[in-house]
């Protein structure tokens, strides 16, 4: 066991996979020599050589396209898109090629590729360095989409992603890289080394894709969240005194329907939280899932707390960001219903 930040845990996952399996290669913009803009790949080139961890040109479509070609011919590439906001040139490759090759090759070929991308805001990145595009991936059948909320999960889920035979989008909430940010932007963030989920085994372990985790057990209301919003929801529950059951979805495709339905049937109330914009955000899908599976158990309308339907603003970032005050207000409101 070691104390790790999320960056170190992600690096450790790639390290373990590269050590165990020669088919794993790691590349992307600034990934080799520089060690990644957020340092997630630091030291890997030195340890495994330039042929296994290397810099690519700045061309996202080319990065993902070549990774798909490698994956169909036996490698397990784990590539980095420097910010999730940069993935759009590669969206064609992800949706039309990676997601479909198993289907259209009659299962002859699969694409065991992992695409890592830092996601979300809270770092004053403005509209091209703060986006949360998870719904755009979840909408594409043939992709799996993972969003960890802590170092322990990040490592176990990333190993699972790299070992998975399907293409996996691995979204890393960048505001969580160094600590469990709970939306209190005016207070110092506790470092991961003081958080129980910053305890990470050194070696190989796997957290299965498609399993949610209950972060806080509660009786009154179910909160469905992932990534940074898990910590915001924990703060909101604590500050309002509402006995919330907080479910960290961890992967949104595949989705853990069982965990969601069991919890909402128990509490009868549900608040959904994400940082992405509201219209057609993944919260809309979650509302549909809850309505379809738990309608007769609901005692109040389901509430969404999300980013606004605007570009991610540079000014007023904390008005846009669904922080603990907004989540707390939703918890209180759903209890009135």
């Amino acid at each position, binding site marked *: 066991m070691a104390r790790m930040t999320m960056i170190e845990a992600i690096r450790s996952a790639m390290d373990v996979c590269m050590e165990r399996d020669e088919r794993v*290669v790691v590349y992307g913009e600034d990934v080799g020599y520089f060690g990644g803009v957020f340092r997630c790949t630091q030291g890997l080139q030195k340890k495994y050589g330039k*042929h296994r961890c290397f810099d*690519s*040109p700045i*061309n996202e*479509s*080319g990065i*993902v*396209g*070549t*990774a*798909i*070609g*490698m*994956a*169909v*011919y*036996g*490698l397990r590439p784990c590539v980095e898109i420097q910010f999730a906001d940069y993935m759009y*040139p590669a969206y*064609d*490759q992800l949706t*039309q*090629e990676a997601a*479909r*090759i*198993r*289907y*259209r*090759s*009659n*299962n*002859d*070929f*699969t694409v065991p590729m992992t695409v890592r991308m830092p996601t979300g805001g809270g770092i004053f990145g403005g509209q091209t360095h703060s986006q949360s595009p998870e719904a755009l991936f979840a909408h594409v*059948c*043939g992709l*799996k989409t993972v969003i960890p909320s802590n170092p322990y999960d990040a490592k176990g889920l990333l190993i699972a992603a790299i070992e*998975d*035979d*399907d293409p996996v989008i691995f979204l890393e909430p960048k505001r969580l890289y160094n600590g469990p940010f709970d939306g209190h932007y005016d207070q110092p963030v506790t470092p991961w080394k003081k958080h129980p989920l910053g305890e990470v085994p050194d070696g190989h372990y796997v957290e299965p894709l498609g399993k949610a985790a209950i972060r806080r057990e509660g009786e009154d209301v179910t909160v469905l969240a992932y990534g940074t919003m898990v910590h915001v929801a924990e703060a909101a529950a604590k500050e309002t005194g509402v006995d919330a059951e907080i479910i960290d979805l961890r992967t949104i495709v*595949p989705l853990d329907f069982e965990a969601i339905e069991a919890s909402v049937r128990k509490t009868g109330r549900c608040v959904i939280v994400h940082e992405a914009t509201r219209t057609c955000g993944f919260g809309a899908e979650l509302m549909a899932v809850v309505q379809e599976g738990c309608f007769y158990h609901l005692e109040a309308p389901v509430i969404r707390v999300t980013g606004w339907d605007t570009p991610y603003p540079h000014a007023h970032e904390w008005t846009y960001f669904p922080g603990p005050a907004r989540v707390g207000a939703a918890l209180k409101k759903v209890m009135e219903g």
Partner: protein
Amino acid sequence: MPDDASSKKAAQKSNLSATKDELLKYYRDMLLIRRFEERAGQLYGMGHIGGFCHLYIGQEAVVVGVEAVKQPGDQTITGYRDHGHMLACGMDPKGVMAELTGREGGYSKGKGGSMHMFSKEKEFYGGHGIVGAQVPLGAGLAFANHYREDGRVSLTYFGDGAANQGQVFEAMNMAQLWKLPVVFIIENNQYAMGTSVKRSHSDTHLYRRGAAFGIPGMEVDGMDVLAVRETAREAIAHAREGKGPYILEMKTYRYRGHSMSDPAKYRTREEVDNVREHNDPIKRCEQRIFDAGYADEAALKDIDREIREIVKEAADFALESPEPAPEELYTDVLT
């Protein structure tokens, strides 16, 4: 633009020759593609094939010439005008035709259709419906070959239209940067759907597309199977020796429309007839056979008869094979 030192037009080779067995094989392989495509066109007209169907008629010498010098294990990947590539790779005409008719016996159980088929056994990596999207994949295959040190070469085909796509240039840069064993084969049939090369390419010499990256390129008479074979031999050897990618611009021509719904009003009938009459790849091969005294007309007619039988069997199979069960729609999406 002057010719870059790294690019050249292929010298007219007057000494192209082949053995009897070779020439007859190329003739047979080209004819199989032509007869298959003619039949596919008929089945389309009769309503047995729906949707999109891009015929390879006129371009047969390109894929057959390259196939002649490919080594076992070398991969083939192409765009949506893919039936010829699949047949040349040795895929079963029955499975290809049944995919066109959307039947269970098709290579993708009918779920892929004309543009979307694969074969692990024949090292055929699709069949891609998005213009140019297969090119980075082809570079990725080459990366895996390089990484695995297995001596294989990726044969990455695309058209003159795809040659303008940004991701093609991304792939070229990466392939040259990492010295990947890939041959980029541009099948320049002179029309990107209805837009001629002149109307869409700032430089119409597509063999120079890699000049910015220092990738050598050659212009090839893509209607002559032997010219294709000899230049492909050179390009593939270059890639296999670790010298990096190579570009072959195959000057070719498609006789039919871009797809079945294209009346081809962007060119004259005379233009098409002129190519059919004077530059047809199968007729040119036939002439070589006669000139060398390898076979007479009767012998070639026998070959045609055999091929028509193979194509008939494929068409019968494609019509008799049942549609896939509805539950098949949900298989092979994810594990």
